[in-house]
C-alpha cells in the first residue's frame, strides 16, 4: 500500500507541475470534436445523431495520445529499475500509475465532454448517460492502455505500435459507450450497456495490472 500511495502521490504532483500534458489531451479532444460540425455542416439533426459516436472516438484518440507517457519517462530515466526493486509486487506500481493516468486524463475528459456535447447538439436526455458511460469506460481505457504502454517500452516508434495494439481493444468500450448514450436519447433503458461497460472495467482491473507488470519486468531486463 505504501508503494501505491507513494507512486500515486508522485505521479499526481508531476502531472500538476507538467500540466501541459493534460492540457494537450484536452485540447486534442476539443479540437477533434469541433472539427466534425465544421466538416459536416451545422445541420442540427445530423450532428445530434452522430454526437455520441464523435465524442467517444475523439475521447479515445485523445487518451491514446497520453498513453505512451505512462511508463516511457520512468523507463528512460531509470526510475523503472527502482520501481521494480520496490520490494512489493509491481502490480501496485501499475495500479498507482494507471490511477494517476485516469485522474489526469480520463477525469478531465469526462468533465470537458458535456461542453463539447453542446457544440454537437447532443439531445438533453443524452447527457447523463454520456457522463456515466465515460465514467465507467475511461478506467478501462487507462488499464488496457497501460498494458500496451508497458509492452512497447524500448521499441522504436512505440507510439504508432501502441495505437495498433490498443485501439482494436477499445472497440467494445466504443460500442457500449455509444449505445448507452443513444439508448438514453431514444428513451430506452441504459442499464444493459452501462452494466457491460462496468463489467469490462472490472475485467480490466483484475487482469490488466498483472499483464502490464509482467511486461514492465521484461522491459527492465
Amino acid at each position, binding site marked *: 500500500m*505504501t*508503494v501505491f*500511495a*507513494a*507512486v500515486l*502521490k*508522485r505521479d499526481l*504532483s*508531476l502531472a500538476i*507541475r*507538467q500540466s501541459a500534458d493534460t492540457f494537450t489531451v484536452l485540447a486534442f479532444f476539443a479540437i477533434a470534436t469541433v472539427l466534425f460540425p465544421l466538416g459536416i455542416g451545422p445541420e442540427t439533426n445530423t450532428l445530434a445523431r452522430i454526437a455520441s459516436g464523435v465524442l467517444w472516438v475523439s475521447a479515445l484518440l485523445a487518451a491514446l495520445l497520453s498513453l505512451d507517457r505512462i511508463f516511457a519517462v520512468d523507463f*528512460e*530515466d*531509470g*526510475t523503472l*529499475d*527502482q*520501481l*521494480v*526493486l*520496490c*520490494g*512489493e*509486487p509491481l502490480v501496485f506500481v501499475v495500479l498507482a500509475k494507471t490511477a494517476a493516468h485516469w485522474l489526469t486524463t480520463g477525469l478531465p475528459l469526462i468533465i470537458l465532454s458535456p461542453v463539447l456535447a453542446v457544440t454537437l447538439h447532443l439531445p438533453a436526455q443524452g447527457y447523463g448517460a454520456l457522463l456515466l458511460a465515460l465514467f465507467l469506460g475511461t478506467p478501462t481505457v487507462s488499464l488496457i492502455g497501460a498494458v500496451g504502454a508497458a509492452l512497447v517500452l524500448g521499441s522504436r516508434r512505440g507510439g504508432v505500435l501502441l495505437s495498433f495494439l490498443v485501439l482494436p481493444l477499445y472497440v467494445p468500450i466504443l460500442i457500449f459507450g455509444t449505445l448507452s448514450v443513444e439508448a438514453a436519447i431514444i428513451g430506452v433503458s441504459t442499464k444493459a450497456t452501462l452494466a457491460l461497460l462496468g463489467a469490462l472495467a472490472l475485467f480490466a482491473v483484475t487482469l490488466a495490472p498483472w499483464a502490464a507488470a509482467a511486461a514492465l519486468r521484461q522491459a*527492465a*531486463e
Partner: protein
Amino acid sequence: MVPRINSGTALSLQTFERASFSGTGLACRRGGRLVFAGLTFSISSGEAVVLRGHNGSGKTTLLRLMAGLNRKSAGELAWNGAEIHDFEAHSALLRFIGHLDAVKPALTVAENLEFWRNLWGYPPVDVKQAAQRLGLGALADFPARLLSAGQRHRLSLARLLVAPAPLWLLDEPGNALDDASLQALAGIIADHRARGGMVVIASHGTTVVENGAPLDVGAFTNVSETHWSEAV
C-alpha cells in the same frame, strides 16, 4: 559547493543484522553472447566487493543480476546461505544505483528524496539531512532540473541514505563526481560498512573511489579473468 561530511547524523544510526550474500557459478547470456560465466563471490556484513573489468566486461550486468533485474543463465545467488527464489523480497534488502539517475526534473531535490523514502516505506524523517550529506543541503528546495550532472548523480546517491538497506549495489558511483563529493561518498560507504552494511561497487580499471579518496576496498573478486571464459 563543498559537501559536508557529518558521520554522526541520525541517518547513520541504524545497524544491520549480520548477513551474507553470495553467488556461485554465476553466468549470464545476453543477446546470445555469454557475458560472463563461472563467477563466484561472497560478501558478508561490513565487507565490500569491487567489480573490476574493462568496458563491456559485464560489471553492470552482474550488478543487475545481483539485484534480480537481470536473469542469470546459470549459478545460484544466496542470502545467508539460502538460495534466493523470491527476488521481490530480496529487492527490499538492497539499493541499486545505476548509470541512470532516476531523478525527476520537475520535482525539487527534497521531493525526489521524499518519494524514494515513501516508496520503501520509511517513516517521514527529514530528507534534508541526506541531501546535506551529499552537499545538496542548500539546494533542497530547488527543482532537480536546475542541477548539474554531478549534482543529479549525488541526488541519486542520497537515495541510499533516505531508505537504508543492508546491501548496496553501486554502478560506477564515482562518475561525474568532484573530489569533495568523492570524499563524501567514501565517508558514506565507510559508515555503511561500519554499521554492518555490504557494498558491491563496479568500476572500470582501478576504481575512482579507490584512488581518489581513502576508501577501504574489501575482498576483490577478479571478474576480468573469468568473464571471457566460455565454460558455463
